[in-house]
């Protein structure tokens, strides 16, 4: 699975589409265990992301990803802004100068992203955050020959696993035990991003048939 500049652009477009479609749902997930704005925060951010990357002409992935990251950082705010911003920024560093993301680069990029998430959020697995999606996905690509559909399934399982965890980080932690029986909104939006990745390579592969 190699990703070209075009593939990554498509990934971001599909991500935006999914975030917009699920905007209300993401905010609803954030209502009982947060402040009900996660979908709107990300919606605002990804709308700007696609505007931004459409205006520019990219020769390599690093510059593209950096624009994505900086846009999210300046438009999302709250907790999700710096988290997704940091993840994409760290990946962008790894992908600087590369016109293609090879599987090796994908691993390096995701490692850096997860490392960034951990440092920024100081959260670990099992604390009911988006980390519970990113870490299993990273595990999977580190240890396997990546199948996009499997990657998406792993992300989905990670998202579902947050239902049943008591939150330890972010606003949801204030809800203590009451936070347990809910899906974490950040985990859900992360799942959407990986689902978008799967779909955008799949469309691509379909196009080649």
């Amino acid at each position, binding site marked *: 699975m190699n990703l070209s500049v075009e593939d990554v652009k498509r990934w971001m477009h599909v991500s935006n589409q999914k975030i917009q479609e699920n905007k209300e749902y993401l905010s609803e997930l954030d209502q009982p265990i947060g402040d009900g704005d996660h979908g709107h925060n990300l919606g605002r951010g990804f709308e700007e992301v696609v505007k931004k990357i459409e205006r520019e002409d990219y020769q390599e992935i690093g510059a593209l990803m950096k624009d994505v990251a900086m846009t999210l*950082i300046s438009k999302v705010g709250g907790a999700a802004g*710096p988290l997704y911003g940091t993840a994409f920024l760290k990946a962008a560093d790894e992908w600087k100068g590369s016109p293609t993301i090879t599987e090796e680069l994908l691993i390096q990029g995701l490692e850096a992203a997860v490392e960034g998430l951990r440092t920024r959020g100081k959260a670990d697995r099992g604390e009911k955050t988006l980390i519970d999606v990113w870490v299993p996905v990273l595990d999977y690509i580190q240890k396997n020959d990546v199948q996009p559909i499997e990657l998406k399934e792993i992300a989905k399982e990670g998202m579902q696993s947050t239902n049943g965890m008591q939150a330890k980080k972010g606003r949801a*932690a204030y809800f203590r035990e009451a936070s347990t029986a809910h899906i974490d909104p950040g985990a859900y939006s992360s799942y959407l991003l990986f689902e978008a990745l799967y779909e955008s390579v799949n469309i691509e592969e379909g196009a080649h048939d």
Partner: protein
Amino acid sequence: MKKIVNNPENVVDEMLEGIEAVHSHTLKRLPDSNVLVRNEAPVIGKVGLVSGGGSGHEPAHAGFVGENMLDAAVAGEVFTSPTPDQIFKAIKAVDSGNGVLLIVKNYSGDVMNFDMAAEMAEAEGIQTEQVIVKDDTAVAEEEDRRGVAGTIFVHKIVGTAVEEGLNLKEAVELARHTAGNVRSMGVSLKPSIVPASGKPGFTLEADEMEIGTGIHGEPGMERKPLKEANCIAEELLETVLDDLDVTAGEDVAVMTNGQGSTPLMELYIVHRKVAQLLEEKNIHLKHSMVGEYMTSLEMAGCSITVLRLDQTLESYLL
């Protein structure tokens, strides 16, 4: 939702325009930003002081920009932390080469966004330090405590101190010392409604109150039948004094803060009891503040903040 607004998406921008129009003698808005900066900034030779957070807590923080207070306040969307680029603009605008101290309320979003702004500043060679205020006694785990009305004491004390010449290292120490000696506890009777969503953050029955709600309506410690003012004052005060371990003979400053729609009358009735209780305990109430300092839109309720005073804190506060 019954609010005097135009398009709910523009509330922050239009509010900032209003603030700038009214207080142009004191502050200006940086172009294309949600940053309000003291007119004299950067004040030569002085450590810069920046705070901020989600909007909807007015007068916090823009209302505290001025001499002996903040050099800049950064406004996020309603109840949403401001973004790093905005905070970074504020840092650049107030740095006179003596470094900038960031006063941050302990919410994940705020902490992370201010962190990123500090990294941006570092990358451009501006020295910054941060103090994270965690005064909300309602949360058990100290590390997870939210930053609430106690933040205002940090603004005021450190604001005066840096005006008098403290350097960045001394300012951080003083800020941490202040934050370490301030605790708050709130009670809410009615929720607030964020303009964009039009929905209340929580709901309460007609005879219920929630002890320990956060300033965005985060859950508190306990929901129970509404009590009379004296009981509320006693419960909030005892919790705070206990947590801060204030003992007879010590000096304190107390802020009885309205959450947005509580009449001043009720705040004074609460504060009356606070003053009485402190007197009974032989704790010296050196300074009282009663009013709206850290609000949550039109939330009803109040919070009590106690600051333990020593000579240093007293000298900068009074």
